[in-house]
C-alpha cells in the first residue's frame, strides 16, 4: 500500500507539468514528422532538378549536333525537290529512236515514206498534237503522220502496210486518210497519207523517280 504524502496542490502542479511536456512532445513529434516529409519532398525536388538539368544538357548537345548536321538535310531536301522537278519535266519522254526503228522495221519492202512527222501530246496541258482522228483513250500520247508510196496497189500494198503498223509495239490505231494512184517515172505507185498513234508504252519512264540510273 502506498501513501501520497505530497500536498494535493503539488500533485496538480506536477500533473499539469507532465501534461504540458506531453503536449510539447506531441507537437514536437508532429513537427519532426512534417519536417521529415518536407525534407523527403525537397530531396525529391532536388533530384528532379538534377535530372532536368542533365536532360536539358543532353538536349542541348543533340540540338547542337542537329544544327551541325543540318547541311545534309538541306542537301537531301534539294535533291528530293530536284528529282521531283526532273521527273515532272521528263514524264512525257518517248524513245524516238526506238519508235523510228520500229517504224522502219514495220514498213513493207514495197513501201517508202516521203514525209514522217511525229509529235507528242503534251500531258502538261500545253500544245496538243495535230487535230486528226481524235482518240480519247488515255494511252494516246502522240501521233505519227506519214506520207509515202507503195509500188503495189491498194491491196496488198496499203493493206499490208496498215496491218504491219498495227503490229508495232507502242503504236496503235493506224488510219489511212488518203491514197491515190500515181507514177514515179515509169513505175506505177500508190501514194498514201496515213497516221498512227503512239500509246503509253512508247514512254521511256526513265525519269519516273527523278535522276535515271547512270548509263541508262
Amino acid at each position, binding site marked *: 500500500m502506498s501513501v501520497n504524502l505530497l500536498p494535493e496542490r503539488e500533485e496538480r502542479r506536477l500533473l499539469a507539468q507532465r501534461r504540458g511536456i506531453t503536449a510539447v512532445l506531441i507537437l514536437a513529434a508532429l513537427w519532426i514528422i*512534417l519536417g521529415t516529409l518536407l525534407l523527403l519532398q525537397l530531396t525529391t525536388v532536388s533530384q528532379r532538378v538534377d535530372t532536368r538539368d542533365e536532360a536539358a544538357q543532353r538536349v542541348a548537345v543533340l540540338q547542337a*549536333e542537329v544544327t551541325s548536321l543540318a547541311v545534309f538535310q538541306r542537301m537531301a531536301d534539294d535533291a528530293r525537290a530536284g528529282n521531283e522537278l526532273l521527273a515532272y519535266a521528263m514524264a512525257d519522254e518517248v524513245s524516238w*529512236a526506238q519508235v523510228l526503228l520500229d517504224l522502219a522495221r514495220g514498213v513493207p519492202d514495197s513501201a517508202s515514206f516521203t514525209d514522217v512527222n511525229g509529235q507528242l501530246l503534251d500531258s502538261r496541258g500545253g500544245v496538243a498534237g495535230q487535230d486528226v482522228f481524235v482518240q480519247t483513250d488515255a494511252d494516246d500520247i502522240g501521233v505519227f503522220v506519214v506520207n509515202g508510196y507503195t509500188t503495189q496497189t491498194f491491196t496488198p500494198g496499203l493493206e499490208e502496210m496498215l496491218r504491219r503498223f498495227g503490229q508495232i509495239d507502242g503504236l496503235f490505231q493506224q488510219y489511212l486518210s488518203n491514197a491515190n494512184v500515181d507514177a514515179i517515172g515509169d513505175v506505177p505507185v500508190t501514194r498514201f497519207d496515213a497516221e498512227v498513234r503512239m500509246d503509253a508504252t512508247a514512254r521511256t519512264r526513265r525519269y519516273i523517280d527523278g535522276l535515271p540510273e547512270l548509263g541508262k
Partner: protein
Amino acid sequence: MTRLLVAVVLVALLSAVGWWFGLQAPAREQQAALDAEIAELQTQETQLSNQVQQLRELELRAPQLRSDLDRLSAYIPPDPDQARLLELLQDAGNAAGVTFTALSFTDPQPVVDAPVAATPTVALGAVTVTGAIESTYFQLMDFLRRLEIGSSRAILVTQVGLTEGEDGFPALTATFTAQIFALVPAPLDPNAQPEVEVEVEATPLEEGAARATAPPDPVGAQSAPPEDEVQVSMRGEG
C-alpha cells in the same frame, strides 16, 4: 486540461495547414512542374536522337547526294546554259554523223503546275528548241538515241519530222522540237494584292512620279510572246 488539449490540437492543426500550404504543396507543385519539364525534355531527346540518327545516315550518303545534286544541276541548270547545250548537241550530232543547219530557241517560260523548287524564288522553266539537221534515217535515230541516253541535260524531244533531202534519198532533212529545262525566277503570285495606285492631282513636274506605281511584270506573264526566237545556224563536222 481541456484548454491544453484544444490548444495542442489547434497548434497541430495550424502547423499542419501551414506546413502543407506554405512548404509541402509548393514543393509538390515544383516537383510536378519538373516532372512535366523532364518528360518534355525526354520527348525532345528521343526526337532529336532519331533526327540525329537520320542526319548521320544522310551524312554517310553525302557523297551520293553531292553527286546527285551535281547531276541534277546539269540536267536542269540554274540558267538556260545554251553554251553547254550547243556543245551537247554538237557532240551528239558529230558522233551520229548528222549536220545541223539551224537551231532556234524560245524565251524561257515557267512550266505550269510544276512541283516547287528547292528555292522558292525559282521555278522550273522550259525553253523550246527547234532544230533542223541533214542526215540519213539511221543517223537521225542515232542522234536521237544519243540525246536520250547520252546527254547529261534533260532534253524532251516533242516532235520529229523527216522529209527527203535536197540531194534525194537517202539524204533527209529532219526537224526536231525539244524542250530543255532551266530554273527561272518564280512567277509572282497572281492572287497577291497589287499595289494600290493613288490618284494624285499632279502638276506637270509631278506626273512622272505619280505614275511609277505599277507592279512589276511577272515572269509568267512576259509581254514578249513565246514566238520570240533566237535563230542560230551551225554546221556539223560530220
